[in-house]
């Protein structure tokens, strides 16, 4: 059984101008010790999916359908109290986007991690918590003596490491990392990604990596889900998706990435813009930008169907004629 099994998750944001259909029928699984990369452009609903899994959606956001199975619980139905006591931090933890701003500037870094431990594990003494913080910082490659520093005394990369340490404070089984490298320089980003890979090995940690950068997924994950306008369009084994993308959107996205190793070519792009999720197009949401769009693409939403025996799923009528 998968560690995290998301089935048909649908999340909308209710605003004055209507419901923003940010995530529609999103399904995926994360196994123990496995890394899943959730990729897509800004506004495609990747972060919404992560926030839905932890049930920490901002005001107006509501899960209106589907299941989030974690262990033997359906996170959608359990109450807030249980969510806080049993799931957040201990089961699933998250490293938020923007390492620069996620730490409180007026508390010492160590104290912030201690606070997280003491809040969630009431049987731990302050002393033990402090000891654990030292170990955690060491695991992420920060000297334990730095626990007494304030966030402004940390560099960008160290802040990101401290946040990762904090997310590991209560030994979660699944770590969600939202854009872990985005605000960092290439070299520091490479350091952080290596750290995540090492942690995954060492702690047998399952990971969900949210990023717009497909290269990061290629380097870190076994599985990938490509999202477009709130729906998963392609999902499965990362090598298959990257080597032989089937969905026209995945193809376009991969083509738009400059590779340092590939031959020098004219850069390609996908014409048009992502749709307004208040009024998404009918049928396949990619159809207005798709050069292969057919009649049926405008009428019916394509289902995510497995390509026989390959563990890769595509939602496109070109691949799975109805």
């Amino acid at each position, binding site marked *: 059984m998968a560690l995290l099994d998301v089935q048909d998750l649908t999340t909308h944001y209710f605003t004055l101008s209507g419901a923003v259909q940010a995530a529609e029928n999103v399904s995926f699984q994360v196994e123990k010790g496995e890394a899943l990369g959730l990729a897509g*452009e800004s506004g495609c609903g990747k972060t919404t999916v992560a926030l839905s899994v932890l049930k920490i959606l901002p005001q107006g956001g509501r899960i209106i359908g589907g299941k989030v199975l974690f262990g033997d619980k359906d996170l959608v139905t359990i109450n807030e109290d249980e969510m806080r006591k049993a799931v957040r931090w201990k089961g699933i933890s998250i490293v938020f986007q923007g390492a620069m701003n996620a730490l409180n500037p007026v508390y010492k870094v160590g104290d912030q991690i201690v606070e997280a431990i003491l809040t969630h594990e009431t049987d731990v003494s302050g002393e033990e918590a402090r000891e654990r913080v030292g170990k955690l910082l060491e695991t992420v490659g920060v000297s334990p003596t730095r626990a007494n520093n304030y966030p402004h005394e940390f560099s960008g990369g160290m802040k990101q490491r401290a946040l990762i340490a904090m997310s590991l404070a209560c030994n979660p089984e699944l770590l969600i990392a939202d854009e872990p490298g985005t605000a960092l320089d290439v*070299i520091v*980003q*490479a350091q952080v*990604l290596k750290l995540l890979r090492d942690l995954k090995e060492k702690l047998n940690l399952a990971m969900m990596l949210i990023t717009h950068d*497909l290269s990061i997924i290629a*380097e870190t994950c076994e599985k990938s889900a490509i999202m477009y306008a709130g729906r998963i369009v392609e999902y499965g084994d990362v090598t298959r998706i990257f080597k032989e993308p089937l969905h026209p959107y995945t193809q376009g996205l991969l083509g738009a990435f400059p590779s340092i190793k590939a031959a020098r070519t004219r850069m*390609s792009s996908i014409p048009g*813009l992502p749709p307004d999720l208040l009024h998404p197009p009918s049928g396949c949401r990619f159809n207005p930008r798709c050069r292969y769009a057919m009649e049926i693409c405008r009428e019916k939403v394509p289902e995510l169907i497995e390509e026989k025996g390959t563990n890769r799923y595509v939602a496109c009528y070109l691949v799975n004629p109805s």
Partner: protein
Amino acid sequence: MKGEGKMEETVIKASNLTKWFPIRRGFLSTLFTKRQLFVRAVDKIDFDVKKREIFGLAGESGSGKTTTGRLALRLIEPTSGNIHFKGKDISSLSESGLKPLRRKMQIIFQDPYESLNPRMTIKEIVAEPLQVQKSGNEDEIKEKVSKILEDVQLVPPQEFLERFPHELSGGQRQRVGVARAFVLGPEFVVADEPVSMLDVSIRGEILNLMLSLKEKFGTSFLYITHDIALTRHMCDRVGIMYLGKLMERGKTEKVVFEPLHPYTKALIKAVPVPDPTSKRSDVIIKGEIPSPVNPPAGCRFHPRCPVAELPLCSHKEPPMIDYGDEHCAACHLVGKPGWEKYMAGT
């Protein structure tokens, strides 16, 4: 594209270009310490941009790329050193002497959300450079604006002229930014990370647009970016900056595939590749870029350099040496055994 047997014309030539920003101090600290501190944003760098060429400047944040771009247009005053535009020293020109040259030198800014005045219409934004330069009467200006909007594929132009920036998408806004830079038909354009704020799927369009405008107007570019993978697709030559210094400079293919400086090598190794089967390197250099207020002595990269030889690298600043075919690097260790071994690794 370049060469064609005759002498290549140099459009921009920077020599010994330096910009130190003084650090503002409180009243008390001026009483107690005499020493004025500086952020050494750009420190004695040399480069040139040839006609119809795209010269890339790549480096991490805080390496001085943007400052260099602004110096090249003299949007800020250099602390020392010179900028020559087509043989003319512009670093000592007066503002009024500079004005006729301004029409030939333009800039495309990084952030299309911040660089367009939200209270001006697209027409006003694109027409402004023409009005400042007194390029024709109202009708001519209007015609030129429509023409350039067509060139940047904001078509039909009538539909965009009276709109405001907030009505456009990020990609369309950056097209307006490009139109504003090209409406005067410049000979030299600084593009400061023009696509880093845009979604990946639309970046290609903007880059290809700049390439076709470059062909059309015969423009030279200084292309500033942190994305070294992108330089391969855009730039003819590239310079790698670190802490205000140029570490390496040469033809893009040479620099990317046969780097001479250990920093360049480290930077290239750190770039993630969108291919799950490619061998990833686990040897990553340690630490982060130090403060430009107190840059390390000697070679600025030596505290992070995996092959640094002390005390040589920590005492003597390496000169920029040409290793043939315009491929220059500032490193003491080129050709030494430790360097050979590191540079041969994946």
